[in-house]
């Protein structure tokens, strides 16, 4: 138990070292991983697994995925991206994907928020309503 807590504390500390002005610096992440492996510290892989989790959580906080049933026009994509950056800050990276199972409409997942305007979601709501 004590050891696990120490591992968590170490990983969090390493993650903090990788932040520059509140944003994750990829070079520092690489450096940290390299250095930790080189140390030969007994729990290094456990620490790195926990460190990876911190990085993953950070990534999801700065990522948005826009899914649509058919490809969106470049113009629409640009306006959508501008709007998302306005809401979630400039550090947000927006990815676009096509998912035909949505049937129609779009689904935006940004940070922990989901805006689901797809036909699939509406059908699901209809199913629950019945």
């Amino acid at each position, binding site marked *: 138990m004590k050891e696990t807590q120490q591992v968590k504390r170490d990983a969090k500390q390493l993650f903090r070292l990788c932040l520059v002005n509140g944003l994750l610096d990829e070079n520092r992440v690489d450096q940290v991983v390299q250095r930790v492996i080189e140390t030969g510290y007994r729990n290094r892989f456990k620490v790195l697994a926990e460190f990876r989790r911190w990085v993953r959580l950070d990534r999801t906080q700065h990522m948005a995925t826009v899914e649509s049933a058919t490809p969106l026009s470049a113009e629409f994509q640009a306006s959508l991206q501008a709007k998302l950056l306005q809401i979630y800050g400039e550090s947000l990276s927006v990815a676009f994907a096509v998912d035909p199972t949505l049937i129609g409409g779009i689904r935006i997942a940004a940070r922990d*928020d989901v805006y689901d305007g797809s036909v699939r979601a509406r059908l699901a709501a209809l199913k629950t309503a019945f």
Partner: protein
Amino acid sequence: MPDILREIENQISQAKTPATKQNVGTIRELADGVAKVEGLSEAMLNEMIDLGSGITGLALNLEETEVGVILMGDYTQLEEGDEVRTTGKLLQVPVGKQLLGRVVDTLGEPVDGKGPIQSDAFYPVERMASGIISRRPINHPVQTGIMSIDAMIPIGRGQRELIIGDRATGKTTICTDTIINQARLNKAAEDAGDTGYRPLYCIYVAIGQKESSIARLTATFEKAGAMPWTTIVAAPAADSATSQYLAPFAGAAMGEWFMDNGMDALVVYDDLSKHAVAYRQISLVLKRPSGREAYPGDVFYLHSRLLERAACVEEKYGGGSVTALPIIETQAGDVSAYIPTNVISITDGQIYLDSDLFYQGIRPAISVGISVSRVGSAAQIKAMKQMAGHLKGDLAQFEELAHFAQFGSEVDAQTQAQIDRGERIVELFKQPQYNPIPVEIQVAVIWLVQNQYADDVPVERIKEFQAKWTDFLTDRQAELLKKIAQEKELGDALQAELKDAADAFKGTWK
């Protein structure tokens, strides 16, 4: 047909709502009825979480990177990586008179097979207790129908009286008898068209009990005709720890509805020891720090915030009351364990049931010495106050003297008289289960003993003497009983009438 079409159109229009923002997370870990969820950055404490597949959870731990959610329902369908979402709602249960006569689970869903409950009101399970300003002093009795309690340890409407004792000492029976007596009183008032009488609605919360025990209890209530005024909230042993943890709070919410609407309710929590165990399980799985006996640090607050919800409020705040009868099971009579001491200090008194007394045949096995009601005689009708004023002291003194006398030492005449009187009172207070006694008969019986009419009756014939006197009163002196019940006070005229009746009865007694 047009109705169906309209209904379909209505449903479709509701489903056509524009895309709204939802806060989501993913299940990272799932074990022992607790899910650790990543994301859910906007989750609030105690908020309901929708885990999909019709399963709801409660956000109990808000941590830096994840949320600890306790689950309700069959969570075996959930998988790691599933998407969950916040609902923005607190956990609510249906409340109201529609729940009377029903057996429901923690969420207020019926489990008695009598069809759905059409309730239009919902109350949050966790709610702040009434404040200082809204409360008023307790002065109205809960007639339990158990003579020793009504005479010596009176319970008032709005009080919290703990019932504590070892296993199989009759704790549940006291509550069952009380509920049955309320049904008798409610029905009598209803039949007589007495609008002045405030019916007492009962909510029995079964926590971690066997399903068979709950079924037996329901049958007992049905047989006694108590179900029309009673709701049973069942969180049996097979239910998840979450259900068992939330059941008393659901029961309290159902009681509060009566209080807010100017009615009186009685909530029995059977029992809070198992409730504490369920909460301990949840806390340990949530990795909260454990304290004494591995209970979490807030186990006191768990019970204090539950029992604080029992109250008697002023007219302008509803004018109703919620009385709480929590039950605690002790191990080998140890009242100094963690949970018993906690609940003793929270409640307004306790009824201690002693297993030694139980096996001596003194049932209900109430140990008068350490049982107490801090509301006291304010919760008694005046006639009972007049009769039973010194009873508790006399009986406690008798127990002490009886200890001396059992060594066979000689005692003086006065002490012997005290012992004799004590033995008769103890005998008088023995009472079979499911047999509540109306308060007017209790008063008449105690009056008879207090006025030396029973002094020459052998101890072993006291029960027979009491039964005959009760029969005599109900058969021949029904008017007198009615007067006692109505006037609620033994004035000189009533005392004289009682004396005449007692003299007449004594003449027939052989």
